[in-house]
C-alpha cells in the first residue's frame, strides 16, 4: 500500500460530518459497510444514508488513507465473505482525534458563552 504523503493533520479539518461519524464508528474496531451505516444512523442526525453517497465517501476516505480495507476477517461463522471490512489507519485515528478536539473546543467555547445553558 502506498504511503500517505506527509500532510499536516490540520489540513484535513474540518471533516465532513459523515466522514467523522464513519471514523468514530471504526474506532471500536473494524466494520463492514452496512454495519457502519447502521451505527452512524443509530447515533442520529443524518436521516437516511443512501448507498451511493455512502460508498463514494468511503472511496474518498480510502484514497485519503484515513481508512483501509482490513485483511483480517472475523471468525468464519460470523463472516460473510462478500462483505468488505474497513478499519482505521493511524492517520485516520489522528485525524478523528483532531476533529474531536476541534469540536470539543467549539463546544467549550459555546458553553463559556453560555450558549448551552441558555438554551437549557
Amino acid at each position, binding site marked *: 500500500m502506498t504511503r500517505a504523503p506527509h500532510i499536516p493533520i490540520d489540513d484535513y479539518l474540518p471533516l465532513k460530518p459523515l466522514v467523522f461519524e464513519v471514523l468514530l464508528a471504526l474506532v471500536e474496531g473494524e466494520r463492514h459497510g452496512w454495519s457502519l451505516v447502521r451505527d452512524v444512523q443509530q447515533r442520529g442526525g443524518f436521516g437516511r444514508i443512501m448507498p451511493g453517497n455512502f*460508498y463514494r465517501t468511503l472511496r474518498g476516505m480510502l484514497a485519503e488513507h484515513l481508512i483501509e480495507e482490513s485483511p483480517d476477517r472475523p471468525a468464519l461463522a460470523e463472516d460473510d465473505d462478500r*462483505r468488505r471490512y474497513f478499519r482505521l489507519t493511524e492517520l485516520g485515528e489522528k485525524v478523528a482525534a483532531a476533529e474531536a478536539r476541534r469540536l470539543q473546543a467549539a463546544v467549550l467555547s459555546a458553553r463559556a458563552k453560555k450558549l448551552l445553558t441558555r438554551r437549557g
Partner: protein
Amino acid sequence: MRRSEQLLYRLLLLAFPAQARCEFGDDMARMFSEQLGEARAAGRSETRIWLSAAVDALRAGLAERFIPFHSRAVAARRESRRWRWWVHAFQQDVRYAFRLLLKQPGITAIAALTLALGIGANTAIFSAVNAVLLRPLPYPDAHRLVMLYEKRLKEGVLDNVVSPADFLDWVKMQQSFDGIAALTPTTVDLTGTGEPVRLFAGAVSPPFFEILGIVPSLGRSFLAEESVDGRDQVVVLGYKLWQEHYGKDAGIVGKKILLSGRPHEVVGVLPATFEFPDTTIGLWVPLSFANGGRPPTRTGHFLNVYGRMKKGVTVEQARGDMDRVGAQLEAQYPEANRNHGVHVADLRGEIQAPVKDGLLTLLAAVAFVLLIACVNVANLLLAKAAARRREMAVRAAVGAGRWRLAGQALTESVVLAILGGTAGLLVAYWGIEVLRQITPREVQVLGVDQLKLDPVVLGFTFALSIVSGLVFGLLPAWHLASQDVNESLKEGGRSPGGIRRRLRLSLVVSEIALASLLLVGAGLTLRSFQTVLQADPGSRQEGILTAYVSLPEVRYPDDAKRVAAFDEIEQRLAALPGVRTVGGTSHLPLSGQDSRTGVVIEGREPTPDTPTRAHPRAVTLDYFNTLGIRLIEGRNIAASDTGETPFVAVINETMAKRYWPGISPLGKRFFTAGGTVKREVIGVVSDVKHWGFDRPVNPEMYFPQRQMVWDGLTFVLATDVDPVTLTAAVREQLKTVDKDLPLSSVRTMAEVASRSVAARRSAMLLLGIFGALALVLAAAGIYAVMAQLVALRSAEIGVRLTLGAQPFTVMRLILREGLVHSVIGLALGLGTAVIVMRAFRGMLFRVSPADPLTLGGVALLLLATTALACMVPARRAMRVDPVKVLRF
C-alpha cells in the same frame, strides 16, 4: 429484494463509472436491499425509498465520474497539497543551493559577476527598447495617427515634405481622416523678459493638437481662424518653457509676450506629459499660409503633415483615399505635381524608424554577451559538477530520482542566475546612465527621457535571469542526472576526461564563435565610423567658430536694414583679435539647416520626369575662403554683387556636372523662384558635405547674401587661436550691435561636425563596449576551460614528462589544443558574421560585411587572446612534477 428490483437498482448504478461499480457495486446493492427490507418491515413508502435511491445513485455516480474523490473540497485540498509538496521541495532546493553557493564564495562571486555584466547590459539596452519601441505612443488612440508625405516613386522618394498648396488641397479632398494638420519648425526670438532668447517653435495648422489628442493643461489650443494672417498672433507654451521662463505662472493665459518683436497672446499651456519627437520645440504658434498676397506655393516643400484616421479606417483604406487625392492633384497641376502622390505611414513606425534597427542590433549584441557569460558559467558549473559526481551518485543510489537531481541542479543555476540578475540591476542602473549620456540629442525619437528601471524592465530582468539560469544550468544538470551511478561510485570521486573534455572544448569553440560574431559587428561599425570621419567634408573643420544670428522682423523689416546689420556684425567679428577671416551663410554645412528649390535652366525645356532642383544658400564674400572651399573655375562673389546688379550664382561641382555635363557652366543662366529670378553662373566651387559625412552631395548654389537676404545668418570665423576662447568675445560683439539680439548658438565647427555623427558614434561606442566585454568574458572562459583541462590531464602530462617529453612539447600540446578549437570557433563565428552583417548593411558605410581587415583583425585578436589564455595553464603543465602527480 426481488430479482427485478435488483436489476432495477443495478440499472441505477450505471450512473457510476465501471471501476466504482466493480469495487462497491455489490456492497451498494446489498445495502440498498437491507434498506428496502427495513422500510417494508416498518411499513414505509417503497416509492419514496426508490426515488431517494435514484437521486442518490445519479448524484453520487455523476460526481464519481466527473469529480475525482468524494468531494470537490477534498480534491481541491489534494491539489493544494501536491502543490505544497512541490513548494516544499523547491524551498529545500533553494536553501540547499544557497548553502552550496556560499560554500564556494569565490566561484559564486565570479559566476554572479559574469552574469551581472551580461544581464545588466541586456537590462540597460532593453530599457531603451522598452521606452522607445515597446511603449505605446503617448497619444490617445495612437493607432489612428499617421504621417502624410509627398510620394515621388520615380525618384524613389516616399517621405518628402509637403507644399502648402498641396496640403490645403489634401485637407479639402480627403475623406478618411478626422483631420490632418501641418507642422513646420521655425525659430522665434523671445524678448521683453530678461535676456533675449532664441527658441525653436512649432508652427502648426490649428487642428494639430486635436489630431494628436492633446488638451492644454491651461487655456486652449488654436482656433481654426487663427491660421489667418493677422489673427495668428497667439501662442501655446510648452510646459518646460512655462516652468522655466514663467515660473509656472498660473495666470499666464491671456498675457502678451514678445515673439520676434511682435506681441503674441498666450492662449494655452501644454501639459507636462506632452511628448513630441522634436524636443527642441519650446512653444507653438499657428501656421499661416499667407504668401505675401500670392496663393500658397505648390513648389516650395516644407510641411510635415500629421493625420488622425476616422474610427474604423485602416491605413490601407487611407492610402487608397489619398492615392485618389494625389492622382486628382497630379491631373489638375501637371507642372508642379507630375509623378507626385501621397504616402500615408503609421506614425509609430515613422517615429521609431530612425532608431529601430540600431536598437535591435544592440539588443542582439548584448544577447551575445549574455550567451558568452552563460557559456562561462556553464563551464564553471561543469567543473563543480565533476567534483560532485560522487555526491549525486550517492543521492541517486539512495533513491533520489533523476528528475529530482536535475531539478535540484537547475534550481542551483537559477538561484545563481537570480543573484547575478540582482547584481545586474546595478550594472543596468549604471548602464542606463551611460545610455542617457551618449544618446544623441539630434535623434528625434520619443521615449529617450523615459529610460528607467520600470516594472516592465524589472520583469524582463527577472525572466532573463531565470532563462539564463536554465540555459547555463541545463548542461551541467543533464550531465549530473545522466551519469552512471555505478561508475561514479566505483571511481571514488575521481573524474575522468572523456565526454566532459569534449564538452569543455566545445565550450571554447562556442565562446570563440560568439565573441567573433560580436567583434566583427563592432569592428565593422568602427570601420564605418572611421571611414565616415575620413570622408573629406569639403570644408574646414578645425579652428572655426560658428555663430548664428537672426534679426527680428519687427526691428529689421527690410533687406537694407538687415544687410547693414549683418555687415556691421561681420566687420566687428573680423576685427576681433585672433580672427583671420569671417564669412556668413544662411545654411551651415552639417548643421541640419537646409532648403531646396526648383531651378529652370535657360534654353532647356523642363523635363518633369527628371526635375532640376538645387539647394540655395546665401553667403557673404569671405565665406568660401573662411571654410576653405576651393574655387574651381570662374570668380568668387564680389562686393559689387548687390541687389542692384545682375543676379549671379556660384554653384558646386555636383550641380555643374549634373546640369551642364561636359561643358563649362560659366556664363550659363538659370531661373529660380518659379521662373521669376534669373541668375548667371559666375563660378564653380568644390563640393561640401552638407547633409552628413556619410551622405551624398546634392546640387548647391550660393548666392551673394545681398541678392538674397535671409533674416538669419551663421557667421563662420577662421581663428588663429582655439576657437572656443573667442565665444565670449563674439557674444559681446553681437550685443554691441543690438542688445536685444537673442543669444544664439555659438559653437565650433568641430562641434557641429561631431554632432552630425553623434548617432553613429553612440552606436559604435556601445558596440565597442559590448565587443570588449565579449572579448574579456571569452578570454576568461577560455582560460578557465584550459586551466581545468590541464588540471585533469596532469597525470597524463606527468607520464609524458617521465617518459622523456620536453616541457616545451607539453606546452605546445596545450597551446595547440586551445588554438585548434579557437580556429574552429573562428571559422564558425566569422562565417556567420559575414552572413548576419549583410542584413545590417544599412548601418555600414563603405565597408563590406566581409571586410578583410575587420575579419583578419578579429581573427588575430581572438587567436592572440586564446594563446594568452592558454599560456598560463600551459606553463603550469610544463612545470608539472611527475613524482607528485603520479603519486596520487
